[in-house]
């Protein structure tokens, strides 16, 4: 399992190509990108705050859970924080498994869990000012 938290941009392929996963027939990856609009209004950038000491641990818990549930051979999570401009990458999740169905389910499960459990908060910056993005409640804490 590889978990990286960083301010800088990353190369999605370089992050995964050195990983030699024996017996995997499928790799599914998700890359999140800063959209140019939110609710129809233009966005300049995102400012992402996080809780560094908790983030690393929470991402590891999310990855371990998905690995067990979906028989994943390997998981890579990279998530940026700080100022990220429109069109730039925010994060990526890549997973490997024997078959495609597990890889798709496992990758989506991790991305979904990130949205509700990983302690990141996004602020959208636009010419009109800035506003926090509404977050989502974890199922078990509603």
């Amino acid at each position, binding site marked *: 399992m590889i978990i990286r938290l960083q301010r800088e941009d990353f190369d999605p392929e370089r992050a995964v190509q050195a990983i030699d996963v024996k017996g995997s027939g499928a790799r599914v990856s998700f890359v*999140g990108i800063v959209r140019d609009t939110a609710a129809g209004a233009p966005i300049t950038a995102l400012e992402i*705050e*996080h*809780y560094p*000491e*908790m983030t690393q*641990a*929470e991402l590891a818990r999310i990855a371990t859970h998905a690995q067990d549930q979906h028989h994943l051979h390997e998981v890579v999570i990279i*998530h940026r924080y700080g100022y990220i401009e429109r069109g730039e990458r*925010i*994060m990526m999740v890549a997973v490997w498994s024997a078959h495609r169905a597990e890889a798709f389910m496992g990758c989506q499960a991790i*991305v979904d869990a*990130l*949205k*509700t*459990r*990983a*302690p*990141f*908060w*996004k*602020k959208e910056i636009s010419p009109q000012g800035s506003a*926090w*993005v*509404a*977050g*989502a*409640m*974890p199922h*078990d*804490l509603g």
Partner: protein
Amino acid sequence: MITVRFFAAVREVMERDGARYEAPGATVTANDVLAAIAGARLADLPRPLLVAINREHAHLTSPVKDGDEIAFFPPVSGG
């Protein structure tokens, strides 16, 4: 001593990123700690509010003890 941390909109309303709180002898919950520290600002905090105790998700009704780190923050928006 309990370490209290605030993030995102909670930090902005509290106008600080954390505090320290001397736990009384009795059992207290995360919510008790927040109420004691926030005072009049309690009503201004964004809701719903999440809490983590020792860097794991918890409930506002979860008990806290001396030495714990409690963090209060809005629902997250990772990914």
